[in-house]
């Protein structure tokens, strides 16, 4: 048994090494500029023909369709072995290697036959979107349409591939002790991805604006040339540039496309910032350190209490005023009602001397006009007294 087992292992290792080499060569060819046209050597020497020709039939169709998109060209040149077929073949070889390893170790049975196909199909579903996205850029760009730029739609291919494969799995609810925390991290990651996507779209809109500015500047110079006008100094040139650029930018800024892109970027960055803070709160909670949110809660309570105190004071003042009125009406002969009285205020020029400062604890009181000591951060001195 042992020699057979060693032979078996050696065979498996040989197949695995061959498969890795083939995969490596296929990748190198895929990323070289003339990979589709390289002749001779390994597989994939000649240019591909149409997709229909490249797609192998039958059970490999799933992998083949996706992989056949790799390096597809629409030129009708000499048909030959497809570089993309090498990918499929390479991965198939690897799967065969694993199958052989398993069959060497365990007794064969009807369940094993479907085992390879099960994983093969699953792998096809995972890899296919990535192969689709890895097609040469011009094939994607020619198919983009709609309001968003071709470039931003092109990058969506990778987002789509991510979301259809790993992203889908990551979006599912987590399990276990860290469930809530992991969900928080996932929200942050999601917010970050949206922020990057929004940033890219915004830059594309701005990029188009710049192109238009340069075009308008050229038109302006051309028009000046036709009228015989000249720019005779660098300052004049800069002034002209500023006028043209502002004019174009303001016109673009008014458009719905720009406002939406800007709004999306701002909202995405704020959403990320909010998730960032929530994640930080979660971390700080674990370490028993108060967070900004905790302090905000405290200040909110203080604010509500202060408001309540002010309303109570106001209510007390109004009641006092009413009582005074009642007293006056009921006892017109008496000069003053009991309680506090205020001296009449002068309307001549205001006193120049600053009144004495009160304790800071009386800051909530509204009565009395004079200031408490200024806190350095609350109010900057910006006037002469």
């Amino acid at each position, binding site marked *: 048994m042992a020699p057979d087992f060693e032979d078996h292992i050696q065979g498996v290792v040989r197949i695995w090494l061959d498969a890795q080499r083939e995969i490596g060569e296929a990748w190198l060819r895929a990323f070289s500029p003339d990979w589709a046209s390289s002749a001779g050597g390994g597989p994939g020497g000649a240019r591909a023909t149409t997709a229909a020709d490249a797609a192998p039939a039958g059970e490999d169709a799933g992998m083949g369709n996706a992989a056949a998109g790799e390096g597809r060209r629409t030129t009708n040149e000499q048909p030959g072995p497809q570089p993309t077929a090498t990918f499929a073949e390479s991965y198939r070889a690897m799967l065969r290697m694993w199958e052989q390893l398993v069959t060497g170790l365990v007794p064969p049975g009807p369940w094993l036959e479907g085992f390879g196909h099960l994983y093969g199909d699953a792998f096809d579903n995972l890899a296919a979107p990535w192969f689709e996205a890895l097609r040469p850029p011009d094939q994607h760009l020619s198919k983009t349409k709609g309001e968003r730029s071709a470039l931003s739609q092109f990058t969506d291919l990778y987002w789509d591939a991510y979301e259809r494969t790993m992203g889908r799995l990551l979006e599912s609810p987590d399990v276990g002790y860290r469930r809530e925390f992991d969900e928080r991290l996932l929200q942050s990651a999601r917010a970050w991805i949206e922020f990057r996507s929004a940033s890219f779209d915004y830059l594309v809109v701005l990029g188009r604006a710049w192109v238009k500015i340069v075009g308008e500047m050229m038109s302006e*110079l*051309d028009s*000046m*040339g*036709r*009228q015989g006008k*000249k*720019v*005779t*100094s*660098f*300052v004049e*040139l*800069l*002034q002209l*540039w*500023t006028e043209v*650029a*502002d004019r174009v930018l*303001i016109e673009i*800024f*008014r458009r719905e496309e720009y*406002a*939406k892109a*800007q*709004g999306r970027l*701002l*909202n995405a960055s*704020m*959403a990320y*910032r*909010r998730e960032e*803070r929530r994640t930080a709160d979660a971390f700080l909670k674990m370490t028993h350190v108060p967070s*900004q949110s905790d302090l*905000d809660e405290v*200040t*909110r309570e*203080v*604010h*509500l209490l202060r*408001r309540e105190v002010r309303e109570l004071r106001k209510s007390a003042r109004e009641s006092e005023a009413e009582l005074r009125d009642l007293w006056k009406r009921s006892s017109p002969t008496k000069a003053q009602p009991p309680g506090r009285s205020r001296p*009449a*205020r002068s*309307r001549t*020029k*205001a006193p*120049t001397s*600053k009144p004495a400062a009160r304790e800071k604890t009386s*800051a909530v009181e*509204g009565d009395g*006009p*004079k200031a*408490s000591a200024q806190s350095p*951060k*609350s*109010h900057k001195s*910006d*006037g*002469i*007294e």
Partner: protein
Amino acid sequence: MADGVKAGKESGRSDSASEWALPIDIRPDQALRELVELNDKIVKGIEILGRIREEEITPGVTPRQEVWRRDNTVLYRFTPVVEEPSSIPVVIVYALVNRPYMIDLQEDRSLVKKLLDLGVDLYLIDWGYPRRSDRWLTLDDYVNGYIDECVDQVRSEAGVGQINLLGICQGGTLALCYSSLYPEKIRNLITMVTPVDFHAWDGLLNVWAQHVDPDLLVDALGNVPGEFLNFGFLMLKPFQLSLRKYVDLLGVLDDEAELLNFLRMEKWIFDSPDQAGEAYRQFAKDFYLNNKLINGEVEIGGKVVDLGKVRMPVLNLYAEHDHLVPPKSSIALKDHVGTDDYTVRSFPVGHIGMYVSGKVQRDLPPTIAGWLKDRR
């Protein structure tokens, strides 16, 4: 036919060739002269800048006294310069988004000084710099709280039942809200470059605000940073305000007076307080997003703001080239106030020009003082 077309084309080409000239003609000697002049200015400018200190550009030149304070809000009274100031004082309500010393920037550009010279008894509400703990301040706190208490304080000090209110920019919007809620306390109302219709789409801010989520902004940041608002304002004219302004600065580097003017303006532009979160949230949602003011749907402290209750005389001042508050936004006030005594006056300047332009400095204070005098 083809020959005729060809001839015409050739003729057109030769005509345009004779008319068209290279538009950029910067000669080396001219460029060199420009460079030398610039260097000369830079050298003198460095010498002047080396002498200038922050205290010299601290604005707010008119003497004033603090007469009331609560939290960050301070009520100032400007020292009268006439023996008998007007019997009904004017309380200035400035915007929350900038510092109020713009109206008292320097000796020769001070709306405050000019009004004092004309005998107006002037008070100013200074909102200060909101701290993180002020994040929970709402419009109710500002309008029914601070403004109301300031008005009561002035009424008590002056011994009058009613005062005049002068609202500037967003302060005008707050003043409108206050006047509709407490009309019995206001004798005359003046609004200056005040937005009323926030869906006047001439204004870029109005357009942009439609796509921004204020809830996200406030939930993420707490108080909305002044730097954030500054950036938005700069983006309204990006090249002029971020580039050309500083290139033009090179031209006045050797003029100390102009340099000081520039530095004072620069200080005001970037000295922006944070916006209290909840107040910003309500203002952005109710005013910018939903334009509730002119629809009579704004609620402040549980009370509905109805511009129809503004029945006191109103003077509405706006700038014809205002890119921040488009004229349409201000002019809309006429259709919503309930007063029969409505006066509107425009000035051919921009938003900032309303505070500092020489022409406006000459015409605006007498307009205000004269209008108030006729309605004592």
